[in-house]
């Protein structure tokens, strides 16, 4: 066990898997000598060389596309997109190839690859260093989408993702990169894909969240002494329906919190699933506290992102309904 932040935990997971499996290759902009702009790949180039820790020309299409070919040929590539905001020139590779090759070839080719990318705000990055577009990927059949909320999960989940035979979008909440430390086992371990975690237990309301908003939701609940189930989804697709539904059946109330914009966002699916499978148990509207439906503004980011006040308003509204 070593106490470490998420960046170190991710670095440690990559190191573990590079060491364990020669088919693991990292590829992305500035990941080699520079160690990545957030230092997630620090030291790995020196240790594993330029064939396995590959800096690339400036093209996200190239990074993802090349990884797809590598995966088709038996490797386990781990492409990094420097910021999720720059992923869109690779969107065709993600939607048309990464997500569909297994299905349309009926498994003749599979794509064991993990696309890592930092997402969300927290670095005062303005409209192009702060986006949370996980809904696009969650909506894309064929992709697995995961996002850890602490260093321990980050390492275990990344290892599970690398060993998965499905293409995984591994979304790293950059606002949590350095802000929390956990005890993280030094060796290989896994955190299961598809399983949510109840990080707080309570009876009055279910709070469903993931990634960047998990510590905030947890602290708001604790600080305000709310008797709440707090669920960290960890996996967005396929999300852990049973944990969500069982909790809501017990509490009768649900509030979903995420940083991404509301309209047609991830929270809508969670809400719709509840409205389909637990309607009789609901004692209040299902509410969402989310990022605003605008680009992330540079100086007013704090008003964009959910905060204690907005979360408490929603909790109070459903509890007092």
């Amino acid at each position, binding site marked *: 066990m070593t106490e470490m932040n998420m960046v170190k935990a991710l670095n440690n997971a990559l190191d573990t898997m590079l060491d364990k499996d020669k088919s693991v*290759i990292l590829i992305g902009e500035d990941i080699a000598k520079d160690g990545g702009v957030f230092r997630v790949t620090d030291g790995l180039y020196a240790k594993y060389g330029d*064939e396995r820790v*590959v800096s*690339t*020309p400036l*093209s996200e*299409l*190239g990074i*993802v*596309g*090349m*990884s*797809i*070919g*590598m*995966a*088709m*040929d*038996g*490797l386990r*590539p781990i492409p990094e997109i420097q910021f999720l905001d720059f992923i869109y*020139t690779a969107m*065709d*590779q993600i939607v*048309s*190839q990464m997500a569909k*090759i*297994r*299905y*349309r*070839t*009926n*498994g*003749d*080719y*599979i794509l064991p690859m993990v696309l890592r990318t930092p997402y969300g705000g927290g670095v005062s990055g303005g409209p192009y260093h702060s986006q949370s577009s996980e809904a696009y990927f969650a909506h894309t*059949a*064929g992709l*697995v989408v995961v996002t850890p909320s602490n260093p321990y999960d980050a390492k275990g989940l990344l290892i599970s993702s690398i060993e*998965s*035979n*499905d293409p995984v979008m591994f979304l790293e909440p950059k606002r949590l990169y350095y802000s929390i430390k956990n005890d993280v086992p030094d060796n290989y371990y896994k955190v299961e894909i*598809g399983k949510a975690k109840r990080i707080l237990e309570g009876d009055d309301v279910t709070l469903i969240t993931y990634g960047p908003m998990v510590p905030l939701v947890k602290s708001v609940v604790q600080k305000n002494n709310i008797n709440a189930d707090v669920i960290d989804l960890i996996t967005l*697709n*396929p999300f852990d*329906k*049973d944990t969500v539904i069982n909790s809501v059946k017990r509490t009768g109330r649900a509030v979903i919190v995420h940083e991404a914009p509301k309209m047609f966002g991830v929270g809508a699916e969670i809400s719709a699933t509840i409205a389909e499978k637990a309607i009789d148990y609901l004692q209040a509207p299902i509410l969402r506290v989310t990022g605003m439906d605008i680009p992330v503004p540079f100086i007013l980011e704090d008003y964009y992102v959910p905060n204690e006040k907005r979360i408490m308003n929603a909790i109070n509204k459903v509890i007092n309904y």
Partner: protein
Amino acid sequence: MIEEDISKDDIINAYRNVILERTLDKKLLGINRQGFLPFYIPNMGHEALHAAIGMALRDIDFFYPYYRDLGSDIARVGLDFVLAQMFSTEKDNELGRDMPLHISNKAKNVGPVITTVGGHLMAATGVAYSHKYQKKPGIVVATFGDGATSTPDFHVAMNFSAVYSLPILFICENNQWAISYPVEDQTKVEISKKAEAYGFTGIKIDGNNFVEAYHAIKNAILNVEKGSMPILIDAVTYRMGPHTTADDPNKYRKTIINEGDPLDPLTIIENDIKRMKILNDEEISNIKNEINDTVSKEVERYEKMNKPGKETLFKNIYENDPWYITEERGEIQ
């Protein structure tokens, strides 16, 4: 000239390939018109080039074709495999999930054809990276149309493959049209020149002339292997038919090469064969009849074959079915 460059067997083999592709192509077009094949992508005009690709590639090479590669595909994976896919049969490796001519065959080192123009070029580059990394023998050969040179993927694949010195041969099947858009509008330079912008060699060849194409491709494969740099071949040919069975070329062009014209690749190879007295008229006629019979028989066989049933619908979306897939499976019972 030809006599020294190519063996008699090879040219006969090529000729048979050309005849097979032409015969099958016409057969499938006919079947489409009768309504039995919902969609087809005609290959007429590309046959000599396809024969050259099919014969120049070695088993160790990885072939990443595009959707207009009927002859090259047959040479690589066999008529049965292609027809099983063409008619979306239950024997189709892909279970009828993709359109005709969109084959995939991992066992034979063939990448999955994608409809999206240019969409496979970076994947081909990635396979080349992997080959190099894993020290696998052989190179990657990717084909695509003239229209594909305008795609983002083309640019990025050319650049990445040069930057990492990858063993990959890009073959542009330049049939001078992208649906209704002529290559003179697609780009203001010769396609072969584009390679220079990335630091490797581009070669322009006559894609209607089997012998020229065959040699050029064979040499290029060896040069890629030796030089460990990519090469781009601009194989100029002509799309003699419509773009697909949904297209009407009369709306936008006058077809300038018709079947039997001196520039028809079939005419060219047939004239070579006659001139060199490799086959006489009777032998030629026998080949045509024999291939015609095979095509009729095989097409009929695959046309009648069962198609995958609805119980296959959800297979292989993921390694394990998510809960919602289980629910959705229930909905179609």
